[in-house]
């Protein structure tokens, strides 16, 4: 299943709906990196609320996605990591170092708005 990408003001929101195959995750990579340029977006939110598993592959994919988006001049916020998923990630030793996270979509948008207004000053 492909991940829909919504444009909200200057930001892009990708909501991951269900367990994604590797191909879907790679497609999301390409789509986001391209759309950041097309819409001149300053921020990207990846909403993973619906993800019930974050294994080492998914974590690495999100990490590289955030790095690519940063190279294109935008910030990434990962939001909605479920408590059980956070617990399991820590036990497995998986980290999202250097990437912003937020509790939910609302917090994620607030975080991006804050950091982009800081940059304009």
């Amino acid at each position, binding site marked *: 299943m492909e991940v829909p990408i919504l444009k909200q003001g200057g930001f892009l929101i990708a909501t991951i709906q269900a*367990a994604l*195959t*590797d*191909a879907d995750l790679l497609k999301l990579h390409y789509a986001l990196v391209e759309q950041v340029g097309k819409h001149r977006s300053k921020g990207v939110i990846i909403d993973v609320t619906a993800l*019930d*598993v*974050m*294994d*080492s*592959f998914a974590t*690495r994919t999100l990490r590289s996605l955030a790095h690519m988006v940063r190279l294109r001049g935008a910030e990434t916020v990962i939001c909605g990591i*479920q*408590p*059980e*998923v956070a*617990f*399991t990630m820590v*036990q*497995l*030793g*998986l980290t999202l170092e250097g990437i912003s996270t937020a509790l939910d979509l609302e917090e994620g948008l607030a975080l991006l708005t804050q950091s982009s207004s800081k940059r304009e000053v």
Partner: protein
Amino acid sequence: MENEICITIESVSDIITAREQGRTIGKGLGFSSTDLTIIATVISEVARNIIVFAKEGEIILGTAKQGGRHGIVIIARDLGPGIPDIPLAMQDGYSTRKGLGLGLPGVRRLMDEFELMSDVGKGTTVTMKKWVYQ
């Protein structure tokens, strides 16, 4: 082991099938939602190791009983190249392919029982158990 089911792992979509089956079995046994996430994640890791290192293999899921407690058994088996240095593979943060191979020490931490058998050139079998906490 009882109620055994076997899932052939040969493509990435089989990983998702296997972890969903694991979740269903775990739910039936009465695992907490955190434990169900752990079970699904562990299956995801070992199934991915099969695809990456051996290309194909199988995940066998079942239930076990021991002294009045119930648990899930997860076996990941392949006829791939095997692991030449098991202590090294079990070291935290060790990885033969960038970002992969990290799975095993973490998986061992998440499960109650963990056994790794590997013969170079013959294959690898990982047998794991998790008991329902009462």
